[in-house]
């Protein structure tokens, strides 16, 4: 797990914890828990919502650590400015990752699905929140891996499809050079996430 601090954001959302879990065995249960937590009432519901208070992101659709950091940054920015489009700063990350404005599509595509085997887990919180890693381990049954492993997990063809990049001149130009193509796709996607709040 890696932790980043953003001193210029309000304290309650100034610290970002990011962990990559591979060989995840309980994606189905995680998804069921999140769905259930959202409908549960009373103190029990609050506790369960606290336990799953993370963003669970399908790692196959994230092209680089900068891609994820950019989405996290824009989500915190929206929260700080009172302009969240979704209910929480964590679901806002999923919204930021998806090219369209459709929230349920964003969650379906970028969130945890029953078949997810690699998950990026993100928690945005205050500096007082301690031992986030064990909170994550309590929910995810998988292998905690270095973020650098992300590179090997990316599903480039789905990423290109979601962002409708296949017909673009920038991609056609480098069809012969897969490494260069990935750099360009990553740059376009990071840029798209960064400018999503003002996209045409």
């Amino acid at each position, binding site marked *: 797990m890696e932790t*980043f601090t953003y001193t210029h954001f309000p304290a309650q959302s100034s610290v970002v914890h990011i962990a990559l879990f591979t060989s995840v065995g309980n994606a189905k249960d995680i998804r069921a828990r999140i769905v259930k937590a959202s409908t549960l009432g009373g103190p029990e519901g609050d506790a369960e919502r606290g336990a799953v208070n993370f963003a669970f992101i399908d790692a196959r659709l994230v092209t680089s650590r900068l891609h994820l950091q950019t989405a996290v940054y824009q989500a915190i920015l929206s929260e700080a400015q009172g302009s969240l489009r979704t209910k929480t700063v964590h679901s806002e990350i999923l919204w930021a990752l998806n090219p369209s404005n459709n929230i349920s599509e964003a969650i379906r595509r970028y969130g945890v699905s029953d078949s997810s085997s690699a998950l990026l887990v993100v928690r945005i919180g205050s500096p007082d929140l301690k031992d986030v890693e064990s909170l994550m381990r309590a929910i995810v049954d998988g292998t905690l891996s270095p973020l650098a492993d992300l590179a090997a997990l990316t599903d480039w063809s789905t990423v290109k499809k979601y962002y409708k990049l296949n017909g673009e001149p920038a991609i*056609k130009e480098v069809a012969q050079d897969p490494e260069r193509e990935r750099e360009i796709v990553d740059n376009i996607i990071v840029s798209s996430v960064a400018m999503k709040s003002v996209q045409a």
Partner: protein
Amino acid sequence: MALALTLIAQGAEAKVYRARLHADRAAQDVLLKHRFHKQYRHASLDASLTRSRVAGEARALIKCLRSGVSVPGIRMVDAPNGLLAIEWIQGSSVRFLLGSSDEPLDEPVDGDLPVSDQPQEHQHPLEPYGVSQDALMVLIGVEIAKMHLADVIHGDLTTSNMMLRLPSSSPSTSRLVLIDFGLAYTSSLVEDKAVDLYVLERAFASTHPDSEPLFTSVLNAYQTRMGKQWHAVARRLDEVRLRGRKRSMVG
């Protein structure tokens, strides 16, 4: 607003900083453009103008990126606060590399430039880039043509708004980078493309002595890349040269 801010330049419209967005050892610097509050404008007008200009610049950049035009990637947009962060380009402006007529060769933009570690007194500024002056003109013409083929009009083409990347940073990436899309807009009109070129021609003439052959090389490369669209633009460029940038005498 971001970490490790260093002011690089200030104009009438914005201040430009070198900054770091993420407290991450692996993070790269970004260029942060802050369109500050203008005291002389009504607050609500200022807010909406600032917002729409940041948005416009970001939209022009993403359009260029998708069309394969070499421009900086976008890293963060905070339109309500007038902030736009883009990829940091390691290199120099073309204006500096061609040696402008009125300024000494001490571009203060970038401390990492190899300028300071040159013992020999008059090394040509282009030398570390391994590109001849004429090859540089070809790169410029091609990049502008790609931009115009995507129907993006830059609006302020000058040699200061083009940069050459240093070869060490990411060798395969396109070397010439168009920057500052603050006045850019989308248009498919031949008129707008011709005026864009005319503005650059005037910029060459006023900043670089004896630049006619240079601009001719730019146009030749532009012509090749534009293909069959070239003739209409060429014809219109001749007209624009006769009458100037403004089509009507109003405004």
